[in-house]
């Protein structure tokens, strides 16, 4: 086989989970196929991700974790922190999976400002009013 896709699922096993409390038996980064560095733009804990509704590219088969991630973001936009918590996956793994899905056009980043920029005064005022009304 020549032209092998870079991220085809290899040897997936269904018996990976013991039970809810025990968590995955495999090392977390096995889910991300050993990769620890996400591709593309840095994803902050509060970066909002939304599903684009696009079909996976040809020859790309999504893992169960990617399916679950996409499913959540397709229902409504989610932050990276919420995804890690909802999927019960380590943050680093979620970043790798989400980075791939963004790259493949199935997820999009909804962010109005750069990761390192502090919120502007207009936004701070809104949060202040919101908190007071809580």
């Amino acid at each position, binding site marked *: 086989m020549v032209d092998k896709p870079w991220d085809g699922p290899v040897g997936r096993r269904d018996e990976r989970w013991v039970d809810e409390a025990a968590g995955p038996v495999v*090392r*977390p*980064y096995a889910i991300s196929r050993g990769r620890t560095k996400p591709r593309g733009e840095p994803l*902050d*804990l*509060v*970066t*909002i991700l*939304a599903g684009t509704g696009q079909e996976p590219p040809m020859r790309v088969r999504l893992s169960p974790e990617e399916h679950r991630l996409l*499913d959540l973001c397709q*229902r*409504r*936009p*989610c*932050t990276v*922190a*919420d995804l*890690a*918590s909802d999927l*019960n*996956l*380590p*943050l*680093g*793994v979620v970043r790798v999976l989400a980075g791939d899905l963004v790259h493949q056009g199935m997820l999009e980043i909804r962010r*109005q*400002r*750069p*990761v*390192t*920029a*502090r*919120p*502007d*005064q207009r*936004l*701070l*005022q*809104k*949060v*202040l009013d*919101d*908190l*007071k009304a*809580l």
Partner: protein
Amino acid sequence: MTSRLSDVEFSPVQDGPREALKILVAGGFGAGKTTLVGAVSEIRPLRTEENLTAAGARVDDLGGIETKTATTVAMDFGRITFPDGIALYLFGTPGQERFWFMWDELAYGAIGAVVLADTRRLTASFAAIDYFEQRSTPFVVAVNCFDGAAKHEVEEIREALDVDAAVPIVLCDVRERESAKHVLVTLVAHALSLSASGLS
């Protein structure tokens, strides 16, 4: 693929957050970080797999464990979703020094930080205060007044902690929702005034 019918059932109410913002909650072990977060928001668990620093590897007893390069850091966070679509996330910073590398990422783009101080162990908050001062991150000091803990004057505490007169110091009881809310209001108001004066 799921059926298209299910898409129709989703209402605009479930549009998800339009904006998501962070606040850090720092402080020594047992200062009440999780209690504060839980008083104002729903607490959610988060796992992160991180490489141990050289310093951490020395501290950690990993005898018998094959993989010595990574460790799982469990942390809690809180989320408050406001009706206007803004979601406010409260992240407790991992207390141990070996997890400090995570603070930068938590602090990037954050509104600011709450440094929880315990009057019985004021020194435990020095490191956090230094960190936020050096990075010009807006912060407030919240002094958790436990039952029976000696009441201290704010100015006494300010002197002991050596924080700038402009930094708000609030006495609070992190178990009380209104008190915890007041701490957050104080922080956001402080961040706003710094931003307005061009200091942040």
